[in-house]
């Protein structure tokens, strides 16, 4: 059996300490953290720029903030950035949606029907334990170089965290609630609808968060190997040409996307599970 990642609901146990206490003091502490964080990043960027300008480190390796910005501007005007971002975004979106369409229904079914779990779990456990990157040569043999093979790589990366969390969510149904439902003669279907599904939402959302990160890794890796479009391919070819500034543009785009999507999911989580705060 593979166990899923616990959703942040466990963190609720600590809320009595945090949320109940000093609201204003907590807010001030948060502000302070943000301020310190901003300052440390600013100092880092300045040092980076200085080290490049004064050639403390060869700028061929480190590039510099200004060089990266001008590279990004140039790539934006000549259309190189737009094409690659669009291609990667498409790969990510399709891969993520396909992963959801596979993982959530399958995970619910595996959590609910023990026999199905018994059949599928060995394969899931094995695949989950394997570094999926090891499968890429095989995927290229099966699907050739192109969108399909890239899609397979992304789905292989994203589907497991979501699948495993969904299974765990269905299994985690509170036995006390089950007993209450039974005492009111609830049917299996009613138990599923009123207890199992809503109870697994926090697990599924947490699985989605992992899936986003994994899918992004999948996109970059797939583009390293499978073709010459996309941010991953851009980073690879920039590396080969020693264009560190261009490579950094690619890296920052991926990093920014990851942060924005994770933030969006956190927002979604608060909307979907308001009972958790």
């Amino acid at each position, binding site marked *: 059996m593979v166990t899923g990642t616990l959703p942040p609901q466990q963190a609720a146990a600590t809320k009595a300490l945090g949320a109940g206490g000093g609201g204003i003091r907590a807010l001030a502490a948060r502000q302070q953290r943000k301020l310190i964080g901003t300052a440390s990043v600013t100092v880092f960027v300045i040092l980076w720029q200085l080290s490049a300008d004064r050639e403390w480190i060869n700028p061929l390796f480190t590039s510099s903030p200004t060089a990266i910005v001008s590279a990004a501007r140039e790539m934006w005007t000549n259309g190189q950035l737009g094409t690659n971002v669009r291609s990667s975004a498409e790969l990510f979106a399709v891969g993520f949606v396909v992963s959801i369409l596979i993982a959530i229904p399958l995970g619910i079914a595996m959590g609910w029907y023990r026999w199905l779990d018994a059949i599928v779990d060995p394969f899931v456990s094995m695949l989950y334990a394997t570094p999926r990157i090891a499968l890429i040569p095989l995927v290229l043999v099966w699907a050739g170089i192109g969108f399909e093979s890239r899609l397979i790589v992304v789905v292989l990366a994203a589907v497991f965290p979501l699948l495993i969390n969904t299974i765990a969510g269905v299994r985690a149904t509170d036995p006390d609630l089950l007993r209450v439902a039974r*005492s009111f003669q609830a049917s299996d279907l009613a138990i599923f609808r009123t207890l199992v599904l809503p109870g697994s939402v926090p697990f599924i959302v947490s699985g989605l968060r992992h899936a986003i990160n994994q899918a992004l890794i999948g996109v970059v890796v797939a583009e390293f190997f499978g073709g010459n479009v996309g941010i991953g391919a851009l980073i690879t070819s920039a590396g080969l040409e020693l264009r560190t500034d261009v490579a950094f543009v690619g890296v920052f785009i991926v990093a920014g996307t990851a942060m924005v999507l994770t933030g969006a999911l956190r927002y979604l989580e608060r909307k979907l599970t308001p009972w958790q705060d």
Partner: protein
Amino acid sequence: MATAEVTSPDAALVVESANKVFPRGKGGDLQVLQDVSLTVAKGEVVTIVGPSGCGKSTLLTACAGLTKLTSGRILVHGKEVRRPGPERSVVFQHASLLPWRSVRGNIAYGMEMQRSASKGERKERVDWALELVGLENFADSYPNQLSGGMQQRVNLGRALATRPEVLLMDEPFGALDAMTKTRLQLEVSKISSETKATIIFVTHDIEEAVLLGDRVVVMSARPGRISRIFDVATPRPRGDDFAESETFVSLRREIRLCIYAPDDQRDPAGMGLVGSG
């Protein structure tokens, strides 16, 4: 709602020589209930008190139809209990509320699962139950916004809203602080006389048992059986003054004696092992 035919018009619930044995393999079987017989009249409040491990909760869940007896049977209005039924509702020790439902939604849950009452009637009954347990102003709150005592009120309201003929309460106030507990006891006393429901109330608190019961059933541990039944003649609902009365104090003393210094000899090891594998 049609109810089963009543064979004995006075008896709401009859327990006939109930035995419950948990097989434990080599260590010998554990007899939790031994030859327990009890008749509860319609509208009567019977409290069952005894040390932990005396089988009182097992007896209650057997009445609920959630535990199968090894031998003997339980009749509710002349009909044998095999599974949970709409004429019985359980209030468990843990409030066990659905965290994603408001107070209103939680109180409606029992009715929803039983598929009793029309939508309009359900709403009416929810309002009725909300008033009965004093939560009119918290109808739209979520369980995590409520204190432990209020959560227990919702638990009670959920059971009451199904309009059970027999209300089974399993140490519902066991985990509450003394002040909250006293208030809820007074309210249960009031509610029981308002709704005329038959109540079986399991507790390990002697004062609670005397305060609430028309009769107090004292059970002894290992194997669990009824050692004595006390009548409490004072009419319900009983207020604060009863808790100071001569009757209350002397009953409390007698029951204490019955529990802590039983005149029968118990097995010296106190293991409650019956037979041997």
